[in-house]
């Protein structure tokens, strides 16, 4: 190993994906293995925390072994550092990855670093687009988060706005469950909406014209009321109209944030960034506005460990390793300062 570049092993278990990856310097992804528990949770219509923790326990060792093998990391120790998600996420799930990472770090006598899952998502786009130009606006949309972040450089984030109630992905999951489309809700709505009329229902676009904060709770309620009013309404039409409303608001605000901050581009991150309509609309809007559209591959949008390894690599270089008594924090924030950007 001594003549090789130092490798970082990334571990991610914050929600329902068990993932491990090996990244070489320069954010060169040598391997990225993701075992999804979506099948396990599908019949419950959402993540079941206890099942999630147990499945991580069963999957983590083989997933790490496969990531190391695919990367050809067979030295002693196989990697130079271990990076792991320490929050936010589900407590039980986070603890499985965190404890395992600490154990590996001690066994291999290599540094260990805790990574903020949100920062990981910001790094995911770097893996697909190595030569980013700052500043950038990142629209981070997932099951647990919806935020607009101004990235002025690596590690320099300013929160422009966030959801005041439900996350966009949560709205997708709950509407999908209500419509009987199954779990995970994002891909299910995406699929069904493709055959529907997005103008069939005029669902509300909450706060679309003002500020950078989001609200999706009322939209979910509007969908429920619409279906109660018209029980025979076409499900594809409802799904398409709902999706149209979510994407309209996300893109309108993101676009406005890019203009107001003089950003060079708009970057998508998080699980909802895998949505076909959102991807197409962001690309079209950026083309029209003459800024770069940074739309990561679907594999990089959803939870993975390559982004954790990449963020960990940067954190190690700029802040050093984490103490071994680092705890899991289910509500960890991005340590963002409120931006004062004209609305």
């Amino acid at each position, binding site marked *: 190993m001594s003549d090789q570049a130092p490798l970082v092993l990334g571990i991610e278990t914050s929600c329902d994906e068990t993932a491990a990856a090996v990244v070489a310097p320069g954010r060169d992804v040598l391997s990225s293995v993701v075992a999804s528990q979506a099948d396990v949770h599908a019949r*419950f219509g*959402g*993540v*079941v*925390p*206890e*099942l999630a923790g147990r499945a991580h326990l069963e999957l983590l060792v083989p997933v790490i072994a496969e990531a190391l093998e695919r990367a050809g990391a067979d030295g002693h120790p196989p990697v130079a550092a271990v990076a792991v998600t320490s929050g*936010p*996420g*589900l*407590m*039980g799930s986070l603890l499985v990855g965190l404890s395992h990472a600490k154990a590996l770090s001690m066994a291999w006598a290599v540094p260990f670093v805790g990574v903020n899952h949100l920062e990981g998502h910001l790094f995911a786009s770097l893996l697909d687009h190595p030569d980013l130009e700052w500043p950038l606006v990142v629209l981070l949309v997932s*099951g*647990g*988060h919806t935020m607009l972040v101004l990235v002025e450089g690596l590690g320099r984030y300013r929160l422009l706005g*966030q*959801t*005041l*109630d*439900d*996350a966009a992905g*949560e709205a997708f999951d*709950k509407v999908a*469950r*209500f419509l009987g489309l199954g779990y995970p809700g994002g891909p299910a709505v995406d699929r069904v909406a493709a055959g529907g009329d997005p103008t069939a229902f005029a669902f509300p676009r909450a706060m679309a014209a003002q500020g950078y*904060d989001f609200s999706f*709770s*009322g939209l*979910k*309620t*509007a*969908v*429920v*009321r619409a279906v*109660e*009013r018209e029980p025979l309404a076409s499900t594809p039409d409802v799904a398409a109209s709902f999706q149209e409303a979510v994407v309209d608001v996300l893109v309108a605000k993101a676009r406005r944030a890019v203009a107001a901050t003089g950003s060079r581009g708009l970057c998508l991150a998080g699980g909802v960034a895998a949505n076909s309509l959102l991807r197409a609309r962001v690309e079209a809007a950026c083309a029209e506005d003459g800024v770069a559209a940074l739309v990561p591959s679907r594999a990089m949008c959803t939870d993975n460990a390559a982004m954790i390894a990449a963020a960990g690599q940067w954190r190690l270089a700029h802040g050093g390793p984490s103490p071994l008594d680092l705890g899991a924090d*289910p*509500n960890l924030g991005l340590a963002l300062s409120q931006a004062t950007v004209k609305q």
Partner: protein
Amino acid sequence: MSGRWALSARTDDAAATRAFAAALAQVVRAGDLVLLVGGLGAGKTVFAQGFGAALGVEGPVTSPTFTLVRQYRCPAAGDVELFVHADLYRLDHLREVGDLALPELLAEGAVALVEWGDAGAPVLGASALEVVIAPGGPEGPDTRTITVSGRGPRWAGRLGQVAAALEGFGPFEPEYTAT
């Protein structure tokens, strides 16, 4: 003996539901457990936002569905130090409710508002204030019927106090059930 009392009120829109929650927040004290019950879109989010704001929570009270529990400091709410907002929507086993450590948080001076709380009632203790929100009605889709009921020793003598705090939403015809 501790029976169960209940009173019902009607709110005409989301703003009224928010005001109702804020009024109810005036009677809770450290250690109180409030179970919030209602289907998707019933108005639980609006209720939680009004309730949290009245307890002095700064910033948005956002959905706890993803993390299961969110905690907020209450700098100006008397003996209430912490507002704990939990959501049992994703829990599948009653024993998982124990993992949320709600009794411990209540003992430390918190007020807990638990969404889909009826599901966890069997393991959350004998005393609770239950708030059931039922949407719709002849007056229109924004109307809500909110039923507040107290059970267990902790709430046995507090009907008068609750009715007084909610005075603007009355008059009430309280019901009693012996248990």
